[in-house]
């Protein structure tokens, strides 16, 4: 996905994709537009998104659970949160069951991503998507749609893990950077701890989404201002 670089204007890209796309649901998503890159954080509308998957390879594995929580710089809105368990196109591995604790029987009764896609996209439309560790949600989402619709999906996203990496790296002195002193862990739970955020169970898509939303709120308050433009945060 080389086209998703800094040089690209997301509003233009969305307009382009809206014209190109063959799927009505995706067209609606793109037509809802993307927030202007200059939008200050105080006015931005975010949605934290988390997937649980059958494994780590987006080419062979699939999504088993989706959690999302809409939020802004001030509040996370639990009443508008969503959570689905899905029937993946590829079988569940025992190892992944151990991680996310979604069982074979739960999955057997679950719907396919295709049947909830409209609702999922509607929840994401017009908001800046926020994840912790960007190499899961975007590639898996893209791949899952490729498989089902024959076309993928693109969107800007804020990665709280990347932000935390940037923050922790900036904390190092020049000498520490030369010496390649390691930065502390930037995993979700460890990052949260640094901001006084409580421990939440990991690997539950809804809990992780809420945890991510809270983490971004904390990062914004500690390291950015309400005037920070979202283009400096997303990628």
């Amino acid at each position, binding site marked *: 996905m080389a086209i998703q670089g800094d040089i690209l204007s997301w509003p233009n890209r969305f307009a382009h994709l809206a014209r190109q796309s063959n799927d009505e649901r995706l067209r609606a998503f793109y037509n809802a537009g993307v927030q202007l890159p200059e939008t200050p954080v105080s006015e931005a509308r975010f949605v934290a998104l988390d997937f649980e998957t059958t494994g780590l390879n987006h080419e062979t594995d699939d999504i088993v659970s989706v959690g999302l929580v809409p939020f802004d710089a001030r*509040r996370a809105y*639990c*009443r508008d*949160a969503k*959570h689905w368990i899905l029937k993946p196109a590829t079988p569940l591995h025992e190892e992944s069951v151990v991680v996310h604790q979604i069982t074979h029987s739960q999955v057997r009764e679950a719907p396919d991503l295709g049947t909830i896609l409209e609702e999922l996209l509607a929840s994401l439309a017009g908001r800046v998507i926020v994840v912790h560790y960007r190499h899961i949600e975007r590639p898996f989402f893209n791949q899952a749609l490729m498989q089902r619709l024959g076309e993928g999906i693109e969107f800007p996203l804020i990665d709280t893990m990347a932000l935390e990496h940037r923050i922790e790296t900036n904390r190092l002195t020049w000498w520490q950077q030369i010496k390649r002193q390691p930065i502390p862990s930037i995993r979700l739970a460890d990052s949260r701890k640094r901001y006084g955020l409580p421990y*939440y169970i990991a690997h*539950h898509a809804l809990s992780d989404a809420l945890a991510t939303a809270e983490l971004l709120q904390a990062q914004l*308050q500690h390291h950015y201002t309400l005037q920070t433009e979202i283009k400096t945060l997303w990628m």
Partner: protein
Amino acid sequence: MQIEHFEIMQFLSAHPPFNELPKSAVQQLASEVEVGYYRAGSEILHYGESISDLYVVRAGSVEVYRRNGELYNRISEGGLFGQRGLLTNRKVRFPVMALEDTLVYCIPVSLFEAFCDEHEAFADFFEADDSGGLIQAVSDQADNNDLTTAKVKTLLLRELVSVELTRSIRDAAKLMTEEQVSALLIYDPSKPVSDDPEDDDGQIVGILSDKDLRIKVVAEGLDTHQPVATIMTRELTIVDSNAYVFEAMMMMLRDNLHHLPVVHKRRPIGVIALSDILRYESQSSLLFVKGIMEQQSVEDLAHYAQSLASVFVRLVNEDANSHMVGTAMSVIGRAIKQRLLELAEDELGAPPVPYCFIALGSMARDEQLIVTDQDNALILDDTFESGKHDSYFSALAKFVCDGLAQCGYKLCDGGIMATNPQWRLRASEWQTQFEDWIDNPKPEALLHSSIFFDLDGVYGHSQLASRLSELVAKKAKIAPRFLAAMANNALRRTPPLGFFKDFVLEQDGEHKHSLNIKRRGTAPLSDLVRVHALAIGSRKHNSFERLEDIKEAQLLPSGKVEDLEAALEYIATIRIRHQARKIEQGKQPDNNILPKRLSEFEQRNLKEAFAVLDKAQSYLKIRYQNKAILK
């Protein structure tokens, strides 16, 4: 689809009052909360803004303030805030700041109210919480009718009315009639106006009231063509426009004033009358004092004084701080003494020589609470001759002390009462006694008499009392041995903290597992403050006011005075609330608190406050005892 926020559900079901709710209800709450994050030091709720959520602290801690900036409470994980505003007028009454990085769950008011309706235990929790005044506060419309938060300037409804001092009494009376005011300020246009704006009193030189016209003009048949200057009251007690209504009320009660000029940056802007305050406050301490003055016999007074406890509880529930509660209770105690003395004089006839009845100890410090001894004494004019006059004063003292006992003020165990001939002395004898205490300090003797170093005239010739206070203020500060002895006494009672900074509690007896918060907390603190106050020659009596003087004198390292203020306020507040709670439960109020009954946070704060006392005592030891040895 109702989705399950496990984390939130789990947390809520572990904390009151949510732990009493059925699972489905908790699930509903969890699915409707909003989550907010606040960095340490940021403001969560701002006074007066509208509020639409109940807040639950999920992680971190917050501090709740009174409107005057005083710390009211600290709330940590699992604690709630915002309920006051929700239950009253949906405006924030107590501003809240994040003390640490804090995550809160916000429960919308619609859900909060629905839950109060549906779940009795849930509603009870909020009703019982915070001294029980919550629901009641709604009907009280407490917000703009609250003596403890309203400022004097809110009582000023009209422009200042004033006349030149050369105008005639008749002109002044006409102006008062036209303007429908009961008091006029009088100014002198020839008086130079100070360059320093802070020092400008706007040429105001006196005040004239209806009462002056009645007493000094009509009753005397005075010529009304005379200038008002001849009858005006020249000694003005003035209140700042930013003072609390409560403070103005106390000033008027203490000095029996009916009118109080109000200044803004020392420039007069109006006058408030007692009736302005009465209109404000319907049935509390002020009316109670008025009622005391109307009682016609000791029996009536004793009967009337029975509702003192409910006045106290009401003040506490109105969030008066410890200074206010202490002042109110002292003013009431003073009024009871004054009325008893009036009744005594009615019975025994006019006193043969001038005298002053003085209050000692906590009443003199304006720190009286509900459980209290009577400590008092008499200063007699030097013309007193014991053979001729003592029978009168011994009868007077007996009348008053017995009367006080009937009104609920216990007789003093130490015999420090006017009935004791030892404490019924001529002014010059008192002077000698105080000089002896200061010049030849013996810690043992001072232990019992240190109570005399807080003295305040209650009735009669108050100059007799103020002359003694003046003597003490002047002499004590240059008497290092005396200060060392007082410091020594102030160190006798230590805070109840053990080596591991845990509470040291009574091990047996009636008060097992409790700690006496007066003996181990407020008393040693006021002892300590008194020593510093004496050392700088402060003439204040109240511990908080003494601390202000101590701060101004830069006697203590920076920050220490603030620590002491906070510690005193906190310990006193715990004590006051404890007593109020006992009364509400129909029990005898006392000073024995059970730390186990306090929340974890209150315990932590109390320990911090005791630790401040502990450190301050160490400092006291070094400062005064070393100095005494060197001299």
